[in-house]
């Protein structure tokens, strides 16, 4: 899915999440030799291997048939169309061929889903048009359909590869069981060669020889699942390449997603500001007005008791007014910190000065980033510092804001705390990630248990 693959955001939350190869080996640490040997020995007996074998077996006729059908339609169609004799018939055949290729790729997708649990990209449907010519046009210029044709054409070599891989299995089984065959067919007529196993021109002709063949068969069987896996994995990779959305489409999907994030975030922010004003300054001012109104009434009444009461009320109102000022100031600087006007470096130092854990700030910014980037960097740093103070038990935090010449802007926040930060635990990191993504930036978290935790936010200097 484009949203996952093209997010351009990586997270390596400790060694647990290290990308693993085709076979997830023990625990994530570099697999010792013993584990590798065990994996090889066990391979033929895993469910996965059997499913892949089944997939390959089914894939041989399916691939061959898909290729044959597609070519059967498109081959004559091309000839007819080019020869101009039967252009109309040719075009009809082209359309039929495209349809067939789509059906073949749907079958392919269903098979991979059912047997392997792999989700191949689904082809978007052809454009729907009304009127004969627009419809023909839409059918002929059906990009996804042509991609299905390409996939179906490639289906033939893949089917051949699958066939070989399947044979490998059969060959292994047959060799492994050759002593059985020897016993079963021992009383063969004189002169008949019993040669169940050929290695090139080699044939097994003796009883001990069958055991040699059996050993060879076992070796073949151990290799067979890996061969099948190689073929299947390459096929899936190819199909994803061919059937998946193009780079442009993936980019569009990413942009659409980040745009909707921006819009939603902006709406949420405005809402939050309204809420803060409503619960904060507005209420404080209403209370202030209430107290001043009461004081005015007391003063108007003018008795000595009333004057004293009015003095108390003015005192309360005065304190309330000061609190309202603080509240409004905090709210305003939360919307846009004025200290940012003096540059990100000063703003980060300001943040550092207010931190409960000592913070070392280094900034090296030969070129000043755009205001939007500075704002994102500032709020990211603020959030990351707050996270570190809350969770890391670190002794020192380092904040670095740099932009190498010609490179992007990079903010790195590192602490020497206990590590183990997990984005899934609602640490606000995903919010920062979204924010970075809105300008095509990335956020990388590295936080192995035991620390250190490093968060790196990479943003373009000018979005």
């Amino acid at each position: 899915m484009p949203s996952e693959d093209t997010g351009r955001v990586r997270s390596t939350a400790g060694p647990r999440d290290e990308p693993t190869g085709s076979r997830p080996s023990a625990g994530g640490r570099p697999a010792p030799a013993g584990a590798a040997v065990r994996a090889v020995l066990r391979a033929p007996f895993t469910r996965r291997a059997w499913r892949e074998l089944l997939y390959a077996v089914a894939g041989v006729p399916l691939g061959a048939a898909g290729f044959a059908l597609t070519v059967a339609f498109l081959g004559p169609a091309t000839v007819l169309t080019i020869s101009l004799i039967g252009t109309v018939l040719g075009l009809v055949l082209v359309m039929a061929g495209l349809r067939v290729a789509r059906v073949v790729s749907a079958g392919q997708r269903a098979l991979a889903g059912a047997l392997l649990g792999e989700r191949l990209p689904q082809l978007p449907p052809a454009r729907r048009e009304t009127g004969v010519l627009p419809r023909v046009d839409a059918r002929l210029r059906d990009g996804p359909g042509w991609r299905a044709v390409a996939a179906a054409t490639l289906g033939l070599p893949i089917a051949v590869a699958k066939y070989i891989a399947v044979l490998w299995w059969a060959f292994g089984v047959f060799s492994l069981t050759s002593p059985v065959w020897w016993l079963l067919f021992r009383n063969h007529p004189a002169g008949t060669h019993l040669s169940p196993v050929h290695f090139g021109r080699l044939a097994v002709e003796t009883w001990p020889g069958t055991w040699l063949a059996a050993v060879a068969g076992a070796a073949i069987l151990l290799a067979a699942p890996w061969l099948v896996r190689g073929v299947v994995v390459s096929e899936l990779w190819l199909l994803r390449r061919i059937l998946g959305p193009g780079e442009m489409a993936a980019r569009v999907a990413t942009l659409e997603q980040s745009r909707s994030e921006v819009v939603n975030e902006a709406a949420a922010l405005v809402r939050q500001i309204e809420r803060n004003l409503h619960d904060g300054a507005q209420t404080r001012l209403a209370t202030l007005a209430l107290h001043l109104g009461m004081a005015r009434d007391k003063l108007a009444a003018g008795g000595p008791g009333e004057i004293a009461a009015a003095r108390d009320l003015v005192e309360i109102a005065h304190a309330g007014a000061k609190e309202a000022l603080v509240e409004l100031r905090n709210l305003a600087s939360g919307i846009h910190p004025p200290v940012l006007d003096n540059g990100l470096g000063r703003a980060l130092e300001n943040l550092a000065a207010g931190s409960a854990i000592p913070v070392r700030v280094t900034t090296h910014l030969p070129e000043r980033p755009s205001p939007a980037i500075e704002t994102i960097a500032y709020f990211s740093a603020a959030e990351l510092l707050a996270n570190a103070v809350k969770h890391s038990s670190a002794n020192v935090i380092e904040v670095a804001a740099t932009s190498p010449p010609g490179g992007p802007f990079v903010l790195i926040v590192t602490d020497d705390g206990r590590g183990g930060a997990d984005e899934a635990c609602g640490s606000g990191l995903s919010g920062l990630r979204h924010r970075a993504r809105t300008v095509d930036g990335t956020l990388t978290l590295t936080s192995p248990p035991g620390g250190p935790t490093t968060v790196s936010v990479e943003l373009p200097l000018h979005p």
Partner: protein
Amino acid sequence: MAGMRVVIAEDSALLREGLVRLLEDRGYEVGAAVGDASSMLAAVAEHHPDVVVTDIRMPPTHTDEGLRAAAELRKQHPEIGVLVLSQYIETTYATALLAGNAGGVGYLLKDRVADAAEFAGALERVAAGGTALDPEVVTKLMRASRQTGGLGGLTPREREVLVLMAEGRSNAAIAAAMVISSGAVEKHVASIFGKLGLPSSEADNRRVLAVLQYLRA
């Protein structure tokens, strides 16, 4: 109405305390001052107040808890007045609140607490089964009203009277507010009802409804 018993629901502790101070200063008895709608309903059951003052946006969802609690209260205890206080005026809230019966209900901007006497007057009116509608509601409705023909026929004085009348004030209160005689107010009222074609000479809260209905028609 000294000794009138009040229950207050307002989630801001600051304003809640201010309200308590204001009401107690005027000799009312504050039975309970709570921070959310369900506590308010419980407090009403316990204290049997004459009138309830409630905020609209309160925990847990900070949307219209107070309004819903007010509607509930009006259904269960029609004898208890409900004065809804809010930072904003929504005409839809006003019409929902007054639906069918403008007696014993009020809807005011929080700003109105700045004028203790006015606020207390509105509260007493609501407790006594009258209406207290914020002038903001009335002017908003007048601005949005399609009855521009009828309203345009009113003199500025009559428009002033119309607003005060829609707020739920009695003729005497209108006279006091405009510093004119009661007789003059009666003449204005009769003229307004005549020009707008409304059935005249009804109880104060009935004529609130009549004016609102006219404005929204």
